[in-house]
């Protein structure tokens, strides 16, 4: 069985699944719109937590939150189910396919056989859509892939029941009801307001303050842990920042695209100007990644390079602080 489902590639998995599922249900929503209304832009440094043997930094909110916020703001209801056994999870998915419902799944990346080995880490917050089954193979639309792909029953069970932080427990989701009319303007305003609040939060580990905290850590890494470890940590920052459509520059460009689209919907030229500014900030994030990569590539060990990088991150945090203050003011009008 195969549901007539159109696959669109996206930069980030959760945005892509949300946008593809809503498009299937007749709501034409772009990836940036999902990201903006769902307030996907975020920054948090988690002290005491280690990921891949390095300090954990996240550039996105908890998995599932973007789609949840988006649907709440647009008045769409999503059904989410988790399962205690793989059998139940399989049965529910197949039931959905029989009823012609393309279904979103949260999966672990490590077991995804269509990814190259190098990409396969224990990361449980990936999203994809299943839109059919051919014999014993599921038809899969993974939004970060250019084309649709397939997974065997055995692999599907593995990725739906991967373990560790954010273990999916078979988590599946799909929209079930839609309002008669979508109030885009209200939803966009709410999304923007929330992003500003989060990025400007007074908490030291979140938003622009979180960036400054990380900058302070970078300065000390080399002396505290030695060059090798400091460089490894830096490489991890860049990985979390730019890998598979998450994080730094990539997210800023999606957000800038969102602001451009929003300026048309809200008829606010100011947002188009702010979109340009966000693009510039995205470029700064990219420069940061390039400069950091030079450090861990050449294994240069002057403590100066770490200070330079920290300064760059501080500069970005002040640019973003000024930016979100302007955006906050603009959206209040």
């Amino acid at each position, binding site marked *: 069985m195969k549901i007539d489902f159109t696959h669109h*590639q996206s930069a980030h998995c959760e945005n892509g699944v949300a946008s593809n599922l809503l498009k299937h249900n007749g709501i034409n929503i772009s990836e940036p719109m999902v990201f903006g209304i769902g307030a996907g832009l975020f920054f948090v440094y988690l002290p005491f937590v280690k990921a891949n*043997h390095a300090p954990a930094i996240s550039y996105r909110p908890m998995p599932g939150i973007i789609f949840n916020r988006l649907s709440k703001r647009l008045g769409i209801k999503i059904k989410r189910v988790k399962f205690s056994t793989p059998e139940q999870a399989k049965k529910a998915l197949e039931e959905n396919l029989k009823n012609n419902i393309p279904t979103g799944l949260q999966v672990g990346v490590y077991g995804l056989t269509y990814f190259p080995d*190098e990409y396969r880490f224990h990361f449980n917050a990936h999203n994809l859509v299943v839109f059919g089954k051919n014999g014993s193979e599921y038809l899969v639309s993974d939004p970060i892939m250019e084309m649709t792909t397939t997974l065997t029953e055995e692999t599907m069970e593995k990725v739906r029941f991967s373990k560790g932080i954010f273990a999916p427990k078979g988590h599946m989701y799909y929209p079930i009801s839609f309002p008669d009319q979508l109030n885009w303007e209200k939803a966009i305003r709410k999304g923007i307001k929330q992003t500003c609040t989060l990025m400007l939060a007074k908490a030291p580990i979140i938003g622009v303050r979180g960036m400054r905290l990380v900058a302070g850590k970078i300065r000390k890494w080399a002396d505290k842990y030695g060059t090798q470890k400091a460089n*490894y940590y830096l*490489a991890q920052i860049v990985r979390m920042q730019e890998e*598979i459509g998450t994080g730094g520059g990539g997210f800023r*460009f999606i957000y*800038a695209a969102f602001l451009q689209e929003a300026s048309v919907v809200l008829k606010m030229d100011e947002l188009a100007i702010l979109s*340009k500014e966000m693009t510039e900030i*995205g470029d700064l994030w990219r420069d940061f990644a390039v400069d950091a990569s030079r450090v861990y590539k050449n294994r240069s060990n002057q403590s100066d390079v770490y200070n330079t990088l920290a300064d760059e991150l501080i500069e970005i945090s002040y640019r973003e602080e000024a930016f979100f203050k302007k955006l906050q003011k603009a959206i209040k009008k």
Partner: protein
Amino acid sequence: MKEDEVPQDKSYLTDSLIREMCYAVDKDGNYTTVVSEGWEPKDIALKNSIQLIKERTEEARIEFINGHLSPLVYFMEKNKMDVGILASYVGMWKWRVKRHFKPAVFKKLSHKTLSKYANAFDISVEEIITFKGEE
């Protein structure tokens, strides 16, 4: 980032199919999407990660040969896991898993416990107990 600035660094990942989509500005200042062939800073970061896992795996292999650690550590590193991830796969507390890293404790493990580890590593119990430290 402008359309023509989207990185197209052909990397060692290029032939493995993942070409990511990026948002970039076209010549009229409008946002559009471009598929990227890869980006060097990211690739080096990823290589750096893979290198660390290789080093940790090799270290665990040598420590096993020297009789300081059980083979579970080697298989854990090889599968890119840490103690927390392994513990959640086998459904045990972290301290118990860590205890099993001691060769003396490992020797006394039941077949049932070993099969939990075998499942987590996607290999057979035999492969774990007959492991001699070969690469």
